[in-house]
């Protein structure tokens, strides 16, 4: 894709955790592109670096042992060095706002719903007509006005997640980042929240970065998908291409397990082994130890990102395609 039509580009993002005096990469050379009004999903298992990716965008990495080692971000034609934490922190709110996984613990237990939403509005637009905006936001997330005087512990999980979404939207961000927004909810509520985010995205043309381990969730909200594994972006492409013709063996395995495909022996296909721990990261392809079609070079040489097809919009980091 060309630089012209994307509003947000992140290139070469690497995040380092310092553990026991050793520097370990949680995210390495990862990237995304996002068009105005588009939804992109970052998919991966826990440990793939997808949440770290999102936290790096928000400059919300744990200050004690994590830092961005490299990364360039371009948004609306302005470019930022992601290593500069305070520069990135200034983008919180008006540029990026975030919805989190566990809506109870992410709401301040001592503040009413109203004051938490109002805070988001005021911080990013001191001259806003607060009452009007609050009413508007509550309608947008389909919450009754009487919730405004309630405290977080008085609401249900689904309502709390709606409040978190209202807080994020209250910032009027250019991009909404949602980190596993439905994982902590029960199944029926998950569907409601997904439908809500979908509606909001359409109604206000929200650009969305969705972080999830669930390809189903991602494909319902996002036009394009970035698959992460072991800190690398290993495959990217349009949702339909990723789902119908996944190029990377990992993505293939992910789709098989998500669809509960039965193998020749009649049992569900599962992906054996574990996500590489940071410590074990070797020189080659991070997926090589679990890969069914690994070649000798996979253990030693990191494959580069190569176009698969779809006019260069579908790429994978795999030796089979390079």
């Amino acid at each position, binding site marked *: 894709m060309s630089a012209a039509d994307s509003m947000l580009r992140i290139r070469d993002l690497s995040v380092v955790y310092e553990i026991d005096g050793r520097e370990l990469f949680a995210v390495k050379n990862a990237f995304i592109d996002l068009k105005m009004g588009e939804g992109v999903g970052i998919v991966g298992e826990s440990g793939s670096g997808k949440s770290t990716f999102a936290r790096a965008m*928000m400059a*919300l990495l744990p*200050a*004690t042992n994590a830092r961005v080692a490299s990364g360039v971000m371009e948004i609306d034609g302005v470019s930022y060095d992601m290593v500069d934490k305070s520069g990135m*922190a200034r983008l*919180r*709110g*008006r540029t*990026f*706002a*975030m919805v*989190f996984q*566990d809506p109870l*613990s*992410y*709401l*301040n*237990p*001592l*503040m009413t719903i109203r004051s938490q939403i109002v*805070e*988001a509005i005021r*911080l*990013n637009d001191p001259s806003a007509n607060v009452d009007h905006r609050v009413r508007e936001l509550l309608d947008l997330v389909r919450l009754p006005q*009487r*919730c405004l005087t*309630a*405290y977080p*512990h*008085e*609401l249900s999980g689904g*309502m709390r997640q709606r409040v*978190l979404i209202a*807080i*994020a939207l*209250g*910032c009027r961000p250019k991009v909404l980042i949602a980190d596993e927004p439905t994982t902590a909810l029960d199944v029926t509520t998950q569907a409601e929240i997904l439908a809500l985010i979908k509606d909001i995205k359409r109604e206000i043309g929200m650009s969305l970065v969705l972080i999830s381990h669930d390809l189903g969730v991602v494909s319902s909200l996002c036009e394009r998908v970035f698959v992460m594994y072991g800190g690398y972006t290993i495959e990217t492409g349009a949702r339909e291409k990723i789902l119908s013709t996944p190029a990377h063996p990992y993505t293939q395995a992910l789709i098989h397990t998500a669809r509960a495909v039965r193998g020749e022996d009649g049992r569900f296909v599962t992906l054996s082994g574990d996500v590489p721990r940071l410590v074990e990261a070797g020189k080659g392809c991070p997926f090589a130890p679990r890969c069914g079609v690994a070649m000798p070079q996979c253990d030693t040489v990191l494959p580069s990102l190569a176009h698969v097809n779809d006019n260069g919009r579908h790429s994978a980091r795999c030796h089979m395609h390079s």
Partner: protein
Amino acid sequence: MLRLFWNRLVWAIPVLLVIVVLNFVLVRLAPGDPITSIIGEYPTPEGYAEQLRAQMGLDRPIHEQLLIYLGHVFQGDLGYSFANRQPVLSLILGKALNTLALMVPGLIFASLLGILIGRVSLSTSARFLDSTLTGLSLFGYSVPIFWLGQVLIILFAVELQWLPAQGMFALQTDLPPFLDYLAHWAMPGFAVTIFYAAIVARVARASLKEAVTGDYIVTALAKGTSQRRLFWRHVLPNGLVPIVSVIGYNFGLALTGAILVESVFAWPGLGALFMASIIARDYPTLQGIFLLAGAAVVVSNFVTDVVYEIIDPRMRNGSRGA
């Protein structure tokens, strides 16, 4: 809120009753005799001691004395101090005001200072200052207050002659009363402040450090909250309950918490009266002081509970379900 108020009030009565009865019995169990204290070493006519004993009602059985005393207490009469030749109530209230004049400013400064030290401990850029303050807190907490008092007197009253060594007001002075009080307050007030600030700081440090790790802090940051606002609006309220409880405890024991300081600096407060009344076996005064001190604890516990409910909506009774 009103119901809680009545509940508390109803409970306060048996608590105070137990305090009164226990102390009534305890002071009489202690060795010594008020009549001997009053008469002293002077030769007296035959039968004078018995006459005095009967006049004060001390010849009656102890349970009769108790019932008479309780009857008077319920009418707001705490008895007559034979050692001080005045009614107990006005005597101890006057002294209690002096003690409060020493303790209340000290406890307020100590509370603010303690929270400030807790605030510094959150800053990642002030590690050295934090360790210094932690060391000083430990010193303030462990140094005997009578020793610190003596050192202060030697330094500022004896050597430098900047401050008066004892009392609350000078007998003759050109200073306006408030400045005179301030000069006398400086050293005992400092000793009180240091000790209680250390207690508050220990609790504040721990509870603020815990509050700052809350997920809701991440949400607040994601809105674009400034560091200053983050502390006052999110961190401090969420870390305040343990701090309020220790401050409330300090205030509850304020009336009897300054016995050593009052002794060292000859502050004319309740502590000094308490010591003198023990030596004089002044039963009514001792009982009055115990009752007042007990009532102060009950009141401060009540106020602390109310403050809890103001801070934390989860502690309010019958919270509305939304």
